[in-house]
């Protein structure tokens, strides 16, 4: 991690960048927050470890409006989001200096707590320099250990890969973390009967409190004003007063990001109710791949996006899958 700080300081010093966008130490051992650093001194708070799951690319929309370049640290999956934003003219490439940082899989504190671990004081083993096999956790209820691979964010188990699709330079090594097929969960649902599917999503979505965390964290949901906040469309919705609105919000949100969602998994990470929101986006990704050929949003800035493109021979909407 220190090399990141050193490099950031160099770039600040030589005037390449005016500010640094990274992560800052939290007040607990597991809650670093996204932060802008404008001075070399401020960088003493800089951190990059297993808990730095937040995707910083969306912050680059605001950073692009500022004077001077911003040094941004992007993990491999974050770089897709940045590229997609670039494709949609939401970020300015000229205003960004991108260091593609390696990633060894990001940790999910909820998953750690689910293991019955509480009263956490310190966590060792989450640093990028560590082997990333075991986390040693000391708590007020005694010391615990947990395997790194058991407590990652669910997205890391179906990681898209270690490559950065856009960067100015790369630092730190990445690690393979994928153990599951990306569409395993989607396929499992597809196999259910309509009743089971309905039941499954009803159960998950009835937890939704419409806090909008999924939307606001999503790099694809970068509208200046969301249709669900806008009275212009007659579609404003502030709460899930009815089960319909729970469905509506998530269907339309997924539809609006279909073909643009890079599957960064932030929606599922931030949901306070643990709703596997990525299941919506992945369903669309899977359908798009199946129906219109493989497409990875954010991979190629010049590729034709599936929903703003077509083929004469596309399948019919009523057609049976097969």
């Amino acid at each position, binding site marked *: 991690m220190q090399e990141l700080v050193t490099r950031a300081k160099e770039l600040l010093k030589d005037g390449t960048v005016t500010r640094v966008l990274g992560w800052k130490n*939290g*007040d*607990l051992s597991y*809650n*670093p*927050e*996204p*932060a*802008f650093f404008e001075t070399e001194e401020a960088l003493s708070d800089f951190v990059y470890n297993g808990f730095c799951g*937040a995707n910083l690319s969306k*912050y680059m929309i605001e950073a692009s409006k500022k004077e001077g370049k911003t040094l941004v640290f992007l993990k491999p999956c974050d770089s897709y989001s940045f590229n997609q934003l670039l494709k949609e003219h939401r970020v300015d490439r000229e205003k960004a200096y991108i260091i593609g940082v390696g990633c060894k899989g990001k940790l999910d504190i909820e998953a750690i707590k689910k293991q019955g671990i*509480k*009263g*956490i*004081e310190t966590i060792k083993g989450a640093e990028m320099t560590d082997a990333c096999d075991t986390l040693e956790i000391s*708590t*007020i*209820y005694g010391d615990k250990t947990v395997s790194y691979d058991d407590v990652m964010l669910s997205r890391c188990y179906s990681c898209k890969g270690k490559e950065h699709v856009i960067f100015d330079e790369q630092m730190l090594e990445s690690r393979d973390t994928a153990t599951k097929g990306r569409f395993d969960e989607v396929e499992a649902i597809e196999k259910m009967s309509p009743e089971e599917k309905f039941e499954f999503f009803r*159960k*998950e979505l*009835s*937890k939704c*409190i*419409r*806090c*909008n*965390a999924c*939307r*606001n*964290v999503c790099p694809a949901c970068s509208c200046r*004003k969301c249709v669900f*906040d806008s009275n212009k469309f007659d579609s*404003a919705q*502030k*709460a*899930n*007063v009815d089960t319909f609105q729970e469905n509506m919000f998530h269907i339309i949100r997924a539809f609006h990001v279909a073909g643009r969602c890079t599957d960064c998994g*932030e929606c599922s*990470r*931030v949901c*306070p*109710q*643990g*709703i596997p929101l990525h299941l919506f986006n992945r369903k669309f990704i899977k359908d798009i791949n199946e129906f219109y050929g493989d497409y990875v949003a954010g991979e190629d800035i010049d590729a034709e996006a599936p929903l703003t493109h077509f083929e004469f021979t596309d399948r019919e909407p009523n057609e049976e899958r097969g």
Partner: protein
Amino acid sequence: MFKIAKNNLPALFRKIKEQRELYLPIRAAEQVNYGVYTEDADVALETLKTVKSPKDAFFPQSETLYTCNKEENKWSITPEELQSQEFVVFGIKGCDVKGIEVLDRVFLSEPVDTFYKARRDHGILVALACNEPEDSCFCKAFGIDCTDPKADVATWFVEDYLYWNPLTDKGNALTEAVKELLEEADDSKVKEQQEATKKIVEKLPYMSISLDGWNGDVLTEKFESPLWEELYKPCLACGTCTFVCPTCQCYDIKDYNTGNGVQRYRCWDSCMYSDFTMMAHGNNRNSQMQRFRQRFMHKLVYFPANNDGMYSCVGCGRCVDKCPSALNIVKVIKAFSKEGGEK
């Protein structure tokens, strides 16, 4: 004081349910929230923090106020009925009990919110003391003793028993109704447990949090602090903190077109939202910094100023756990005390 064996709790729940609707922590799709007790519900009383606070029971996320219907050219208005049946909220923690006190300040002071009042009048709070507080807890900073919650009934889990102590008339009435399942007990075991828990509380990472510097005439000083400009930056402007908070009480009133009429309802709103208190001329606060500042100024300065020094934060730590950007009120408090210390 009474007690009941843990394994007999289902009988207790069933007994309560005979006469009163029962709300308690229920696990559904891997998350624990307050919900209505049914025979097949997965009760999770041992959960320290439900995702949402129990404020829903008195101040639901959305509720209909009245319905207008159009028949021919005539409109009819049907007000929503007020709560008229007693109900029990079981397992509520000390911090959340305090949270309801905060809501009382808002909704029971003039003009009284009749919907809220009806629910408060008919709701019986059965509190449950904490045994194993967690790293994000900081209720002590607000003078809350999580081992001794004050509600209609206070309860404790000690070994294989739930200890039961009615504290109010409503609590006594509920105790009467379930008396056949309870047995008399002394409070020695409870006292032991309380002492043990208090020791744990002392070890929690947020124990040192102090609200010094927030009381008194600090409004202008805090409001104008340059710290806000830094603190708000990672904020995504979502409503997670507000919606999991046991004391956030802002709501919006909206109309829903049902086709043949209009249903007027209110729903939680969040001061973090860009359209919060949007008016014809625009917004009061049009930057996220202002909105961010508003939330914490309200909790720590404005509310106490109007409510005899009572903060509208109870240290439950839900925002600490749930903020997508790892922001929270503790970080705010700490940032200011650091600044104060450096002065």
